[in-house]
């Protein structure tokens, strides 16, 4: 009786607790400090994206949540359970899908799913049921009987995702779920994750693709050098960096610099020039008034306008504003989505 009460109470505690709660979380590898006193609180019931440049500590954080790494100091609780004190309880609550699709290529999709389900503790018959549901929901039916080594990148990633779901985890951890995938593969994975989120699974994903956070998450934590530098709902984050952006597109690259100078004169902030899309942009505190002024100056200078407007900052711009110079290279790379990082 008393045991039952305790179980109920601890289950209630887990329900009420934040999804993730890190305080002073530090992870060191020898002299390298990957997480440096990270403080994070993330609520349950939200899809959370952890953003940051390469080397910011994103993967270390996920691996610590997944109990693959032990904190050097500080504390990390997952749904109220301490990762160091009670790793088995945490492992039962999480499903991990990694940067590298960790499925066995010589086994079929179905075999992979059933194996993982049994390793979560399912009986053989329950494992078959769980695998069948995942196959159905992730649209793997056509390929489930084939060895996963023959899958496309997107299919393999979806299978990996499925393997993390067969144990009915309460928290799905996705470490750079689309790194190395082509655009079609990314779309497949995004659709799958979105439908999981819609179905109520808590998701934490790391990414250095800003549009991915935009697509999938409603709560964002930005980390840099092992510390959280911003946290909150996506909309708040954009608002906190403030300022809308005036952006103008011109028909010829040769006009860009002149257009940029005009934007600078109007907004008093340095313009960003994107020669590829023939666009100049600058942060604007003055909104519509500055936009009207910019249009006037451009006409005076006889610079034709393809397109001009006032818009909210993109995540790229938020990201750059938050992380500063160090992230610039990475941020640009993340924005140039065609450059895939090799999974080696």
């Amino acid at each position: 009786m008393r045991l039952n009460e305790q179980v109920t109470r601890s289950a209630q505690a887990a329900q009420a607790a934040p999804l993730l709660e890190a305080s002073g979380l530090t992870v060191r590898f020898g002299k390298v400090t990957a997480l440096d006193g990270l403080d994070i609180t993330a609520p349950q019931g939200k899809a959370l994206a952890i953003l940051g440049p390469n080397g910011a500590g994103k993967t270390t954080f996920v691996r610590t949540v997944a109990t693959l790494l032990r904190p050097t100091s500080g504390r990390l609780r997952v749904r109220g359970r301490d990762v160091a004190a009670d790793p088995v309880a945490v492992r039962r609550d999480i499903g991990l899908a990694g940067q590298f699709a960790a499925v066995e290529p010589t086994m079929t999709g179905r075999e992979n799913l059933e194996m993982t389900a049994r390793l979560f503790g399912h009986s053989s018959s329950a494992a078959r049921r769980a695998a069948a549901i995942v196959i159905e929901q992730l649209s793997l039916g056509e390929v489930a009987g084939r060895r996963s080594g023959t899958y496309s990148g997107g299919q393999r990633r979806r299978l990996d995702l499925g393997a993390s779901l067969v144990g009915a985890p309460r928290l799905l951890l996705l470490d750079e779920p689309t790194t190395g995938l082509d655009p079609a593969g990314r779309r497949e994975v995004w659709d799958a994750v979105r439908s999981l989120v819609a179905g109520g699974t808590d998701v934490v994903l790391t990414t250095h693709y800003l549009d991915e956070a935009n697509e999938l998450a409603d709560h964002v934590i930005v980390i840099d050098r092992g510390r959280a530098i911003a946290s909150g709902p996506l909309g708040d984050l954009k608002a906190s960096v403030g300022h809308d952006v005036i952006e103008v597109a011109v028909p010829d690259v040769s006009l860009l610099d002149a257009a940029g100078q005009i934007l600078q004169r109007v907004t008093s902030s340095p313009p960003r020039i994107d020669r590829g899309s023939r666009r100049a942009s600058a942060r604007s505190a003055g909104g519509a008034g500055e936009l009207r002024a910019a249009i006037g100056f451009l006409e005076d200078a006889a610079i034709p306008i393809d397109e001009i407007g006032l818009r909210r900052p993109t995540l790229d711009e938020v990201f750059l504003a938050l992380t500063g110079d160090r992230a610039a290279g990475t941020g640009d790379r993340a924005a140039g989505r065609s450059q895939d990082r090799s999974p080696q």
Partner: protein
Amino acid sequence: MTTTQTIAPIAAIARPSAPPRGARAALEVARRALRKYFRTPGLSVMGVVQSALFLFSFRYVFGGAIQAGPSGYVNYLVPGYVATIVLFTGGGVAVAVAEDRAQGFTARLLSLPVPRYAIVAGRALADSATNAWSILVTAAFGFLFGFRLGGTVPGGLAALGLCLLYAVVFTVVFIVIGLFAPSVQAAQGLSLIAFVFAFISSTYVPAASMPGWLQPFSKYQPITPMVDAVRALILGSGSDVALALAWSALLLAVCTPIAVLRYRSA
């Protein structure tokens, strides 16, 4: 946002009432490793072909020029060859372990509510089984290439049993090599160390035929007594058996805890 599917059924997956027990998890891990082995012809078929080819070369190519053993070189060679075949095929174990780490499979296992020792136990079970299989196949080739038991059948079976014990010992050693290798290629390279121990021992030629400066290594490293014990058992004697068992126990006692501890950190 476009939502392409309805999702309720994922939520319909029941939550397992308890994590799997260690033995069940170990068997599951072993089953996957065995499937990989037998479904990858490069591992299962080539391993057998390679061991047969080497035996063929020693027996028929070099063998004619080697004088060893009272009853012909084939009867000297085969017991040693069978006892140490895992030193050649076992590199595959180190590579498989390193691959699982590099490709994230180990991380996936470690993120599951599976007892840590079960992951190593499953790996060791599967690899010991495939290495035992190598030994049985190689022994069969030995008979095919002209090896004949000089002593009794029970003696021969005892020798075979000792070889199977070595399969387990070497498996754990190669698991440790795979766990410490910084990359898959390095695992392959590090495994070549085993060749040194196999060649500079009494496996292929008597240690006494080597130059004096090489003899101390040959004499005091574990492979020589392990091989000599197998030969002794075949001839009905028990010499070197205690020493071989002691070496086996020592290697297991050192490598097993290292493997279990090392597996914890993916």
